[in-house]
């Protein structure tokens, strides 16, 4: 479904991503893990069209989208929940949910009910300004807002960032449910490698702009090197 081929990203002469290739198959959960500065976020931002690729190509459903503007990519079904949630603080929860469906002209009622079912907390607080929600609630709102565009692929940039372990667990359960119940493909990047590998069908490890290892989530969880480098276990 999504295919990244030899993607390169430069920031003013510094190569943040050095020609990586990977594929996200239909209806799967794929994760990129790695340390700070490995180029994970840059990769997602390039797929969403927020940064320009300086080389390589990105294709979606067989169509080259490397030079499409962000809004056109959203229309094709590629949605990114940005790092740090970025809900609109001065809009209500309900407005934030509705703005996720900005490009749609059909009735939203059914979909709003569906995200309320996933996140009952949002229904209770639908009138509240999003800026007054807790971090976990804002993350739920960011995911709900992402789902409202009816994405084919939902990209999540560090959904566990700064959240309590119990909330992280809840968010990951929902990611799994979205994937299984609604058939939405998920591309996830995480520093919380343990969590990410447990839900992922396929995982890629990124280090300083390159992919150094790949395998199924379970394979990497069991891998000694990964355990030492990312999961905090001794060799």
């Amino acid at each position, binding site marked *: 479904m999504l295919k990244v081929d030899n993607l390169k990203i430069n920031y003013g002469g510094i190569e943040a991503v050095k020609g990586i290739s990977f594929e996200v198959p239909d209806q799967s959960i794929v994760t990129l893990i790695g340390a700070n500065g490995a180029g994970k976020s840059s990769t997602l931002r390039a797929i969403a069209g927020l940064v320009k690729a300086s080389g390589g190509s990105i294709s979606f459903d067989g169509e080259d989208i490397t030079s499409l503007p*962000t809004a056109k990519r*959203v229309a094709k079904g590629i949605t990114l929940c940005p790092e740090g949630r970025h809900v609109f603080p001065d809009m209500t929860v309900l407005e934030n949910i509705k703005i996720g469906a*900005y490009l749609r002209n059909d009735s939203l009622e059914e979909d709003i009910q569906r995200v309320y079912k996933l996140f009952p907390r949002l229904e209770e607080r639908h009138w509240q300004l999003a800026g007054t929600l807790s971090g976990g609630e804002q993350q739920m709102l960011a995911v709900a807002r992402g789902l409202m565009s009816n994405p084919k692929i939902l990209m999540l940039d560090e959904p566990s960032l700064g959240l309590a372990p119990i909330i992280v667990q809840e968010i990951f359960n929902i990611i799994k449910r979205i994937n299984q119940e609604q058939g939405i493909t998920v591309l996830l990047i995480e520093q919380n490698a343990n969590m990410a590998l447990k839900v992922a069908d396929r995982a890629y490890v990124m280090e300083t702009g390159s992919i150094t290892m790949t395998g199924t989530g379970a394979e990497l969880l069991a891998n000694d090197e990964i355990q030492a480098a990312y999961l905090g276990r001794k060799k």
Partner: protein
Amino acid sequence: MSLTTFLQQCLTGISLGGAYALIAIGYTMVYGILRLINFAHGDIFMMAGYFMIFAMASMPWFIAVPFVLLVTTVLGVGIERVAYKPLRSAPRMSVMISAIGVSYLLQNLATYLFTALPMAYPEIPGLKKIFKIGGLSASFVTFFTPVLTIVLVYLLITLIHHTKMGMAMRAVSKDYETAALMGIDINRTISFTFAIGSLLAAIGSILYFTDRMTVFPFSGSLPGLKCFVAAVFGGIGSIPGAVVGGFVLGMGETALVAAGYSTFSDAFTFVVLIIILLVRPTGLFGEKTTNKV
């Protein structure tokens, strides 16, 4: 001062304030979305005055008015495309300098094309007609300006809070990237904001110049500065703030003239600016942040 004279002056002040409010909205909206003080805004207002002179010379007023509104809107959007859009990722200072450049360009272009001599502003039938209510007598435009201002502000606020375009404008003014991730076309939203700002400036220009009767190449600069101050007074970025600021400045200025200090009427604006910057730099309704980390 008799009650009638007092009310008469109030009416004049409210009317002037209405025209100021319409122009101040343009400053505040553009600031809200681009974080840019559009110094060319006062000159767009001046150009609208010239457009009206030439339009009325060759068409009946009911065609000339929409024509002028349209041409001014196109001018405003065009300026954004040519002078601000290429600087979208440049530092804010560069865009501001570009705005100052556009302002001088328009003033000098007007001087070159139309000479620096004041030109007579045409009369739109009906607007100058004298009306009497009780002891008050004023031209129709004086009564009409505040009413029209309130109606337009109401429509604008409805647009911003209850339409998709308004939602896009609010989103873009908060966060470009996240707005883009929602599928919002940033450039189209910014163009739309300039279109509304310029349209309101054109309407303000018709109301203002009908009262003043002449246009010259610099007649946009002082009203432009005053309306900028009105926007700062109300809290730049806030539309109700700009409206309140416009009315306060218009009425204060008129009050000074009425009290016999007309020499200081222009200074009043800038005294207000200094005081507000000292006492409450964010303005009356300055941006609140409801961020919780």
